[in-house]
Every structure is written in structure tokens, then in C-alpha cells.
């Protein structure tokens, strides 16, 4: 079990700027699972679809779910809409 400090961006900012999550496993997929469980606890089932289309950044690297968690700090990036 590890702890990851997760920074929120875009639509996730409605939940605050960041959150600390316990992650049960070494993979980014495990972090995604923790986030999903947290959203359910908060009653924000509506964010699960967005979470599924979101990506995790560690520093300036975007990681896939099969990658190992490389740091105790990450950002959660929902679909982008610049311009």
C-alpha cells in the first residue's frame, strides 16, 4: 500500500485542488481504481466516465495503466479543451 498525492485539473477541480489516496498496488491502473472508489464514496458516480477517458501524469510524463507508479505525486488530466 502506497500513498499518492493527486493533483486535480479541469472538471476534477470541482472536488478541490488535490487529494491524497492510498493505492493498493504498484500500477497506474491501481491508482485509477483508487480514484474511482474515492469518487463513488463522494457520490460522484458522474465522474467515472470522465475518469475512464483521463490520463495520469507523473512529472511531465503521461503514463499508461500498465506502467508502474513512478512517484508519490501525480496529476489527473481529463480530456483537454484548449483553444
Amino acid at each position: 500500500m502506497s500513498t499518492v498525492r493527486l493533483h486535480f485539473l479541469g472538471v476534477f477541480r470541482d472536488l478541490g485542488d488535490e487529494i491524497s489516496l492510498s493505492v493498493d498496488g504498484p500500477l497506474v491502473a491501481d491508482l485509477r481504481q483508487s480514484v474511482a472508489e474515492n469518487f463513488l464514496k463522494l457520490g460522484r458516480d458522474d465522474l467515472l466516465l470522465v475518469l475512464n477517458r483521463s490520463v495520469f501524469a507523473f512529472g511531465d510524463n503521461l503514463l499508461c495503466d500498465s506502467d508502474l507508479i513512478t512517484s508519490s505525486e501525480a496529476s489527473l488530466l481529463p480530456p483537454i479543451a484548449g483553444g
Partner: protein
Amino acid sequence: MVDSHFFQSERDEQWFVGLTDGPCETQNLAETVTDPKNGAIAQFLGVVRNHNDGLSAQAVDYDVHPELAMKALKKLAIELTSVYPVRLMMVHSRGLVSVGEASVVIAASSAHRKDALSAVADAIDLLKVRVPIWKREIAPDESHRWLDGHSLRQD
């Protein structure tokens, strides 16, 4: 246009990219890409409009991941200046931008018009699907909604 207008910026001989707080400055864009060798300058301004999807809007609040946005803008600038013989600049806003104000400015110069026009068109198309920026649209009654966009997920 000077670097102090930006909270983050980076330049090369052929390109300039930056992020600015609030609306983008739209004056003197051409100066940034002027080159005595180039006879064409193309510009694009993305401006906040007062409606979207049938709803009224008074402003857009842009959220940015500065580190990743600068990395993506720089990569895009390098890519476009390797495809087109242009001098290129791209700037995007962070924070509140009101209706009529510019949230993104792009300019390119080239010896002849086609390269500058193509570089600017590609730049805005690719910026929208590569640079980590999000829009929170604010209605006249101060309610807001985050706009959906392009997923960066690749697995």
C-alpha cells in the same frame, strides 16, 4: 511582445511559445515572427464567444498544466517548423478571458503565403488535441460548466 508578458515562455531561432495569465495580447503579433526573408505573415486569434451549444457565456476560465502544456507547445513548434519553413509563435491564456478577448494567438511567417497559412492552420488544429488546457465556461448568471474535449489516454 516581450517575454515578461508570460508566466512561462521559451524560444528558439525559429519559434516562440508561451503561456500568459488572462487574455492574450493581440497587438504587434507580426513583430514576433517578422523576418526580412519572409514575405507572408499569417495570424490566428482564438476569441471567446458569447454562446456555446445554445447556451450564453460571458467568459471562459482556462485551467492549464503549465509543465505539460509548455512541453506540448514546444514539441509542436519544433514539429511544425521542421515541416514548414516558417517562423512560428503560439501563445495560450490561463485564467479568466472575457467574451471578445483572445485566449490563443498563433502567427507564422514564411517566404511565400502557403507555408505560413498551412503552419497556422495545423498549429491550432494540433494545439487543441495535444496541449493540456481545459475550459470552464461561465454563464451570465455566474453558473459554470467544464467543457468536454479530447482524451489524451492512449491505452
